[in-house]
C-alpha cells in the first residue's frame, strides 16, 4: 500500500501546487482589472470642458488660485519650474490626437493639464518609501516628510505631472499662506485634488476659481453626480489611455 500512499502524496502535492499557481494567476488578473465607478464610496474625478476653458485663452484664474493656496513657488527658469496645474498646447497634451490637417490654432490650443489621479498610478508603483500612495477615494497623495527625493515617480509619470524642488522653494513664494505647508528643497510635489479643502466640504480651488465653470469635479461613484452625467452624455477623452493608467481627469472636446 506504500505505493498508493506515494501516489496520493504526489497527487496532493501537485494539487497544492496547482492551487497556489491558480491563486497567483487570479491575483495577477485582479491587479490588471480596473476598479470601475458604481462601487460604493467616493471616487473623486474631474471633467474639463475644453471649449468653455477656451472662451478666454489668456485666463489663468484656476492656475493662480491653485498656486496661491498651495504655496507653489514661481521659478523663472523652465528647468526648475514647479507646477500643479498649467496649460499645454493640444498636441502636447494629446500627441496621438493631432493631425496634419488641423489648423495651427487648433493644434496649439491651450489645454489645462494636472495630475490625473490615475486608478493605476505608475508613480505609486515605483515609489520606494510609499511617500506617494493612492487613497481609498482615488486621490494620489504625497508625503513631503517621507519623500527621499529619488525622483523615480517623476520618471514613472507618463504625463509630466510631477515637479521636484531643485532649489529652496520658500524664497520664491510670493506670499506664504500659513494654513498650508511649504515644501523643502529635495522633495517631489504635485496636485492633490485639494484634499485639504475636500475634507472641509469645499471644492478644489481651481474648480471654484473658474468663471466659465469649465472644471467639473465630483464623485465618480455617484451615478447622479454632474461628472457622471457629463461622462454619460458627452464624448470625452483621456490622456494616453493606452498606457493602462486609467486617468480620472476627463476632457470634453
Amino acid at each position, binding site marked *: 500500500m506504500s505505493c498508493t500512499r506515494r501516489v496520493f502524496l504526489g497527487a496532493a502535492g501537485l494539487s497544492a501546487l496547482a492551487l497556489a499557481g491558480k491563486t497567483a494567476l487570479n491575483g495577477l488578473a485582479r491587479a490588471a482589472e480596473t476598479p470601475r465607478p458604481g462601487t460604493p464610496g467616493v471616487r473623486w474625478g474631474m471633467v474639463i470642458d475644453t471649449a468653455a476653458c477656451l472662451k478666454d485663452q489668456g485666463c489663468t484664474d484656476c492656475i493662480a488660485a491653485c498656486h496661491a493656496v498651495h504655496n507653489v513657488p514661481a521659478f523663472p527658469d523652465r528647468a526648475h519650474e514647479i507646477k500643479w496645474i498649467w496649460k*499645454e498646447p493640444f498636441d502636447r497634451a494629446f500627441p496621438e490626437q493631432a493631425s496634419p490637417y488641423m489648423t495651427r490654432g487648433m493644434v496649439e490650443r491651450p489645454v489645462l493639464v494636472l495630475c490625473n489621479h490615475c486608478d493605476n498610478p505608475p508613480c505609486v*508603483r515605483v515609489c520606494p518609501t510609499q511617500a506617494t500612495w493612492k487613497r481609498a477615494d482615488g486621490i494620489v497623495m504625497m508625503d513631503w516628510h517621507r519623500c*527621499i*527625493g529619488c525622483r523615480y515617480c517623476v*520618471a514613472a509619470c507618463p*504625463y509630466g505631472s510631477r515637479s521636484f524642488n*531643485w532649489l529652496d522653494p520658500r524664497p520664491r513664494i510670493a506670499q506664504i499662506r500659513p494654513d498650508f505647508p511649504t515644501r523643502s*528643497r*529635495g522633495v517631489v510635489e504635485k496636485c492633490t485634488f485639494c484634499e485639504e479643502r475636500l475634507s472641509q466640504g469645499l471644492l478644489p480651488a481651481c474648480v471654484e476659481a473658474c468663471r466659465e465653470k469649465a472644471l467639473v469635479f465630483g464623485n465618480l461613484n455617484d451615478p447622479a453626480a454632474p461628472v457622471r452625467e457629463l461622462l454619460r452624455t458627452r464624448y470625452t477623452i483621456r490622456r*494616453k489611455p493606452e498606457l493602462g493608467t486609467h486617468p480620472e481627469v476627463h476632457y470634453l472636446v
Partner: protein
Amino acid sequence: MFMFEKAVVGSRRYWIWLAALGAVILVGALSYLRQLEVGLGVTGLSRDVTWGLYIAQFTFLVGVAASAVMVVLPYYLHDYKAFGKITILGEFLAISAVIMCMLFIFVDMGQPMRVLNVLLYPTPNSMMFWDMVSLGGYLALNAAITLVTLSAERQGVAPPAWIRPVILLSIPWAISIHTVTAFLYNGLPGRPFWLTAILAPRFLASAFACGPALLILLTAAMRRLADYDPGTAAVQKLGLIVTYAMLVNVFFILLELFTVFYSQLPEHMAPFLFLFVGLDGHAPLVPWMWASVLLAAASLILLIPPRFRQDGRLLIVACVMVFLSLWIDKGLGLIVGGFVPSPLGAVTRYAPTLPEMAITLGIWAVGLLMVTVFYKIALSVQGDHEAAA
C-alpha cells in the same frame, strides 16, 4: 583588521598616487557640500531630464560589479586554474564598484538624510527597494568571500568548506543585480526608450564586455607598476570573454534598432533620433554616440582576429576602446535618452555642471582608491605566499 597593514606600506609612487586621489576626492566632497546646501539645482538636471550623470554612472558601475562573475564562474564552478590569481582582483573590483554605485545613488537623492526610509518602509512593489536589497547583498557576499579566501591564502591553507556555497550563491546574485537595475527602467509605461525586454540582456552583455576589459587594463597597469604577472593564459581568456560579450552586446543593440525602426513607432524612434542625429535642432550627444559606435566597431576589428587579440598591446588598445564605447553608451546616452523627448514632447538639453562633474570625479577617485588599496593587499598576500613557497 582585514590585512590593512599591507596597505600602509608602499613606495613613494604609491603614496603620491593616493595623495592625488585624495585631492580629487576632497574637491568632490566640497562640491557635494555645496549641493547639500543649495540643492540639486546646482546640477544640470531639470524638470524634464530628472536623472543624469549620477544615475548613469550608477548603472554603468552595476555592470562593472556584476562582471566579477566572469572570473568567479570559470574559476570556482569550472575549476579553471589560470584565473587563480585574478579572481580575487575581480571580486575586489566588484566591491569597489558596488560602493561607488551606492555613493552615486546617495548623491542623487534630494533628501539624503532620509535614505533609511527605504528600509524603514520596505516597499516590495518598488524596483528601487529590490535594487537596494540586491546591491547590499552582493556587497556582503563579496566582502565575506574576499576576506575568507585571502585570509586562508595568507595562512597557506585551503579556504573553509562553508565558503564554497557562498561563492556559488554570488554567481546568480551577480546576474540579479544587473537584471534588477534594468527593471528600474524597463517597467515604466511612459518611457518608450527603456520599455524593452532586451534591456536586461543588453545590460549583462555590455557589463561582461566592459568589466573584464577593465580588469585587463588594471592587470596591465599592475604589471608595469608592481611587477605583477597575472599569467598570459588568464589575460588571453579574459580577452576572449570581452570579444564574445561585446559581439553579443552589439547584436542586442541591432535587435533593438530593428524593432524600433522597422515598426516605425514614433515614440520609440524619437530618443534614438535625439541621440544619433538630433531632434528639433538639439544634438548635444550626437558626437558622443557616434564615437561610441566607431569605438565599438574598431574594438571588434582588433578583438575578433586571434592574431590581433593575442598581441598584448593591441588587446590593451581594444580594451580601452570597449571601455570608452560602453561608458558613453551606458554612462551618458542610456539615461539621458530615456528623458528626451519628455512625456509632453519637450526636447530639453542636459549638460552636467562643474560641481556635478567634480562630485562624479570624486566618486570615481574613491573607487580608484579602493581598487588601489585592495589590490595592494591582494598582491602583498600573493607575493608573501609565493616567497614562502
